[in-house]
C-alpha cells in the first residue's frame, strides 16, 4: 500500500518500530494522549516528546517525516496561542508592551503548556500512523473483539477517500468549465456551494447499492471467524510493555491527584 494512494500517512520501512505489534504502538499513543492531559507544568510534555517519541521515530526511520508533519500541524496552533493567550490574557503580569497591547507572563506560560500538549498528542498519533499499516491495526483490533464491521468501515474509508477527493476535483473543474464562478465575492462563492456538493454526494450515494451487493457476494454478513492473509507477530515482551504503559498512565494519574490534594 503506497502512502499517496491511500488516505494514510503510512510509509513502509524495514525497522523494528514497523515490526512491533500494532496494539503495542496503539498503547503508546494512548499513553501519550493520557500523559499530555495529566502532566503538570509547562515543560513536561516537551520532555516526554524528546525522551519517548523522538528516539522511537529515529528507530523507525521516520524522524524527518514526523518532524515535518508535526511542525505543519502544531505551528498554526502555536501562533494562535501565543498571539491570543499571550496578548489578550485577562489581568496578568505584562512583560513586553507593544503599543496598546502587552504580552502577559501567565498567557505565555499557558501558551507554552498548551503547545506542548498539542505537540505530544499530534506526534504520538503521527508516529502510529507513519509506522503502522492501517489494515494491520484493524486486524489486531478485530482479533481483540472489535466488530468486523468497524474494521470494514475504517479500511474502506481509507481506500475510497482518495477516489472521492479526485472526484471532487473533477467536479470542480467541470463546473468551472461550464462557467460556474468559484472565485470573487463571498456571495458568489456561496452560490457555487450547491452545484459542487450536490453532484458529489448524489453520485456517491448511488454507488452504495452496488458496493453492498459486492460485499454480500463475499459473505460480509456471515457470522463466525474469518481468515486473514496478513499475519501479525506479537511477543510476551510486547505484552509486558503494554501492561507497563497502562501502569505508568495510572501512576501519572495517581501522582497528579496526590499533588492536587
Amino acid at each position, binding site marked *: 500500500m503506497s502512502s499517496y494512494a491511500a488516505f494514510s500517512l503510512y510509509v513502509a520501512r524495514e525497522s523494528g518500530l514497523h515490526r512491533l505489534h500494532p496494539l503495542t504502538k496503539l498503547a503508546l499513543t494512548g499513553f501519550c494522549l493520557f500523559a499530555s492531559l495529566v502532566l503538570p507544568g509547562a515543560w513536561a510534555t516537551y520532555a516526554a516528546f524528546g525522551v519517548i517519541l523522538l528516539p522511537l521515530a529515529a528507530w523507525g526511520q521516520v524522524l524527518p517525516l514526523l518532524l515535518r508533519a508535526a511542525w505543519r500541524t502544531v505551528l498554526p496552533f502555536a501562533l494562535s496561542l501565543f498571539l*491570543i493567550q499571550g496578548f489578550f490574557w*485577562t489581568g496578568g503580569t505584562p512583560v513586553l508592551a507593544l503599543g496598546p497591547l502587552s504580552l502577559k507572563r501567565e498567557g505565555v506560560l499557558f501558551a507554552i503548556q498548551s503547545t506542548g500538549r498539542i505537540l505530544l498528542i499530534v506526534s504520538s*498519533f503521527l508516529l502510529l500512523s507513519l509506522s503502522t499499516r492501517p489494515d494491520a491495526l484493524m486486524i489486531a483490533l478485530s482479533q481483540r473483539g472489535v466488530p468486523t464491521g468497524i474494521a470494514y468501515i475504517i479500511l474502506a474509508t481509507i481506500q475510497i477517500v482518495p477516489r472521492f477527493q479526485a472526484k471532487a476535483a473533477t467536479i470542480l473543474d467541470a463546473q468551472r468549465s461550464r462557467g460556474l464562478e468559484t472565485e470573487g465575492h463571498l456571495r458568489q462563492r456561496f452560490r457555487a456551494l450547491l452545484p459542487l*456538493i450536490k453532484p458529489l*454526494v448524489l453520485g456517491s*450515494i448511488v454507488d452504495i447499492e452496488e458496493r453492498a451487493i459486492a460485499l454480500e457476494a463475499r459473505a460480509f454478513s456471515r457470522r463466525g471467524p474469518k481468515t486473514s492473509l496478513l499475519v501479525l507477530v506479537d511477543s510476551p515482551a510486547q505484552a509486558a510493555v503494554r501492561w507497563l504503559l497502562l501502569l505508568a498512565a495510572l501512576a501519572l494519574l495517581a501522582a497528579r491527584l496526590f499533588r492536587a490534594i
Partner: protein
Amino acid sequence: MTRMTQADRIRSDFTTLTWVMIPVAIAINIAVGQLIYALKVPLYLDSIGTVLVGVLAGPWAGALTGLLANLIWGLSGLNVTYAPFAAVAAVIGLLAGLFGEAGWLRTWWKVILAGIITGLVAATISAPISAYVFGGVTGAGTDALVAIFRGIGLGILPASFAQGVSSDPLDKTITYLVVWLIVRALPGRFLDRFPRAENVR
C-alpha cells in the same frame, strides 16, 4: 407484526447497506471539506455525510459515522487535531437520527431549526475540549473571533464557547439544508432501501 424492542430496532438499522454507506459518508465529509477549502467560504460543512446516515439509518448509525469519521481523520495522520472532537461528531450523528425519527426532515423550517439546535449543542460540547486540549484556539481563521472575545475580557472556556456559538449554528443549518435537498433529489425507489426511509417520505 410484533413490537420491536430498542435492540431489535438498532440491529435492523445496521443492514449491509448501512455498513457500506458509513465509509461513503465519511469520504463525503472529507471530500466536501476539500471543496469548501477550494471555495474559501468561512464554513466547515464536514458533517454532511454524518447527518445523512443519521437521517437514513438511525441515530446509532449516525453516531458511529461521526465518531469514526473523526478518529480516522486523526489516525490517518492527515488531520490529527480532529480526533479529540470525535465525541462531538458522534453527538451530531445521534441528533440527526433523532430529528429524522421526529419527522423534522420533512418541513423546511424544521430542517433549519434542527440545524440551529445541532450547532448550539456542538458548540457546547466542543468548547471544553477546545479549551482544555487546545488552549482555546482552533489554529484557523475563526481564531480572530477568539481574540475578540478574549479581548473583551472573556475567560478561555467562555471565549471558546462564544466562538462556537457564533459559527456552528450557521454551519450546521447549511449542512441540514444541503442534506434535505439531497434527500429530496434521490429517487423514491432508491430511498426505500434504507432502514429509515420513512423519516423523509
